């Protein structure tokens, strides 16, 4: 079990510069700035096979190589710390515990991209993390890791930490850019992609916190070494934030390719379902990915072991698979109500839709209302089909992926747990009572 990012997270005082430096911090900056050219760093990242850790899993090296480099136009690196996906809290842990790791990654990555002004966009709810980061940035400035002529290499970098207002949509890269420019956080139409015209119309790369942090071990040990960990195209380690009805929830750094079974039941990881109950369902990658029923969590539809990799979790497409997403691993035990959970997710997306394009604005609100009725014992059978149909009309027809993110969990819940939706229609009174807490857990299951 190798840990690359959270290797020193338990060292006391690791959030301070002195301790971090003593544990070998900022070695990657020294190595990159003194011995490597920006192209070398890019080459190492490409070799590592690192894929975006924010959810989509797009190869980071490829994203970097798409960056337009017109003469005389400044370029920017933005760190997306607007981690707002329900169930995901890995970036928060990393920034809280080892803020200097992110800053080190930002310096090395900015060097590779030729960016002289970089930003960390952090969500408005993480105000205390903002303080931690700002303190760390100040320490980095004091010790000459940021500012003019870093390490005498001639490379300048200014790093700013900007808080958002607390909107989920600002985690979408173009909405993030709009928000950073001081506008309403509406996603932009693509193309042009940020790599061509991003922040202030300049070429911009937007990366997740974990992706940027992963550049540090990649530069330190080399891309080939990093690529040795993992299975196939899923290389390296991944932070998984496990939550829900688990014996030991928390943030884990896993090597790509361990089995889902080991992750849920293994002693090193979550140690099984809380209170000895049974697994009912699992959302493996944050609230926007399809939910998996218990029989598809540890095994794929073809009977193979499911692994914690991008490919294996997506095995079977949306019929019988899901996605690794951002690594927000939510587990439900036998007592949880899928309809209530689906309604909860739908409520979140209805609240967070920016309201720019019609399918998302109207569709998310509609789904929320229908699910609300179903959950509260006011639904009809036709509502279930209606939900499935609304889904299809939203999916793929919106400007940004929020529409898809809202549609997928509802579609998957109906696909795998239709019987529960039907139970809510057929047992209106019971559903209503259960909602108001009139029926205890015991009588409900009996």
């Amino acid at each position, binding site marked *: 079990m190798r840990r690359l990012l959270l290797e020193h997270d338990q060292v006391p005082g690791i959030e301070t510069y002195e301790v971090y430096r003593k544990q070998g911090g900022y070695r990657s900056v020294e190595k990159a700035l003194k011995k490597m050219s920006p192209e070398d760093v890019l080459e190492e990242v490409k070799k590592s096979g690192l894929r975006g850790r924010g959810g989509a899993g797009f190869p980071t090296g490829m994203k970097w190589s798409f960056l337009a480099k017109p003469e005389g136009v400044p370029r920017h690196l933005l760190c997306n710390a607007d981690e707002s996906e329900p169930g995901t809290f890995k970036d928060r842990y990393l920034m809280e515990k080892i803020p200097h790791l992110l800053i080190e990654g930002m310096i090395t990555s900015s060097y590779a991209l030729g960016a002289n002004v970089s930003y960390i966009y952090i969500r408005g709810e993480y105000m205390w993390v903002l303080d931690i980061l700002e303190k760390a940035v100040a320490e980095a400035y004091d010790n000459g890791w940021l500012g003019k002529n870093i390490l005498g290499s001639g490379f300048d970098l200014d790093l700013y930490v900007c808080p958002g207002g607390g909107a989920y949509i600002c985690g979408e890269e173009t909405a993030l850019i709009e928000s950073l420019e001081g506008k*309403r956080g509406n996603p932009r139409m693509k193309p042009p992609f940020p790599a061509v015209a991003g922040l202030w119309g300049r070429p911009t790369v937007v990366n997740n916190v974990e992706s940027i942090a992963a550049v540090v071990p990649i530069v330190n040990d080399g891309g080939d070494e990093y690529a040795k960990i993992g299975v196939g195209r899923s290389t390296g380690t991944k932070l998984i934030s496990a939550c829900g009805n688990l014996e030991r929830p928390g943030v884990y750094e896993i090597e790509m390719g361990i089995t889902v079974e080991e992750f849920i039941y293994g002693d090193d990881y979550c140690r099984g379902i809380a209170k000895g109950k049974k697994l009912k369902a699992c959302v493996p990658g944050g609230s926007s990915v399809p939910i998996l029923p218990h029989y598809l969590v540890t095994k794929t539809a073809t009977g193979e072991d499911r692994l914690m990799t991008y490919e294996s979790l997506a095995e079977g497409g949306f019929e019988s698979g899901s996605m690794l997403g951002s690594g927000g691993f939510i587990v439900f035990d036998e007592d949880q109500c899928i309809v209530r959970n689906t309604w909860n997710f739908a409520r979140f997306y*209805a609240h*967070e839709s920016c309201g720019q*394009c019609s*399918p998302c*604005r*109207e569709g998310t609100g509609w789904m929320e209302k229908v699910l609300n009725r179903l959950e509260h014992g006011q639904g009809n059978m036709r509502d279930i089909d209606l939900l499935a149909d609304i889904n299809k009309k939203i999916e793929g027809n919106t*400007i940004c992926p929020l529409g898809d993110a809202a549609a997928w969990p509802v579609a998957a819940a109906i696909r795998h747990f239709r019987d529960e939706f039907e139970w809510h229609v057929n047992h209106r009174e019971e559903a209503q009572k259960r909602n108001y807490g009139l029926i205890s857990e015991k009588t409900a299951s009996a």
Partner: protein
Amino acid sequence: MVKVTIDDQVIEVEPGTTILNAARQIGGDIVPPAMCYYSKLPGTGGKCRTCLVEVVQGSEKDPRPMPKLMVSCSTTVQDGMVVRNKTSERVQKNRAGVVEFLLINHPLDCPICDQAGECHLQDLGFENGGAGTRYEEERRTFAPRDIGNKIKLHMNRCILCYRCVHVAKQLTDQRVHGVLNRGEHAEISTYIENAIENDFSGNMIDVCPVGALTDKTFRFKSRVWFLKPLNASCSCNKCSGKAVVWMFGDEIYRVTARKDAYGEVEEQDGKAGWICNDCRFDKKDVHNWQIEGPRVINRHSVISQGHYLSPRQHDQKKIK
């Protein structure tokens, strides 16, 4: 020039043209409907999703189809692109879905709406919508807001096309209104109760595809199809002075800009023919105007009813 095929009709257009504009060059019923795109206002488009089309061949070089439906107002054509609009069942289905979304929270108060008859949402719903609704919930409503004594804002009817925001941004010195809140509750408003008053704010009424922004000086006066539209001009130092006056008997009921088949203002002297608020709201006397002749409204909507001549008759007359 690049070659593009839309619904089996081939046309050569300038590189950089959008699919929608290429379709408009062909004309006819293969033109996708557009509720938010407005060619005279750069930056509009992409929001309403009614102009979705299917691209079955990306280009000559890369013939792969595009997996998602594309918004034709913002997708530029490639050489050898093949687009399906009317001939694609997938497009028709999804467009019907979008129309349903636009209508679920719309009050459907056409009988008392001043826009009725020239409303793009009416046309869209008539052509692509279903007869009934599957929406059982209460419709969304907004608190009424006063934005001045010339323009009436009726937020419940709004489809959030953002056109009026672009008018304020691009035609006037200072924008005082915008979109507040988000998701279902997003609304057009001034943040602090404020009148939208400047020389060109009235154009917001012309660009509004629905009855969300209407002329207060024309409010509840008449149905638009009872009025006779006439091309008229006046000497105005603020705008081109070329407008359409809508008359009933000897009275001018309202003044609008000259709009084309897509509801967009026509070009006057090489510029978009926006008219100023003086011409629109204050010059309601026939003596203010020089009447040029009858206005042919080339739209398939009800508004084309009150004509002296139908477009066809008009063309026939020209040929003679």
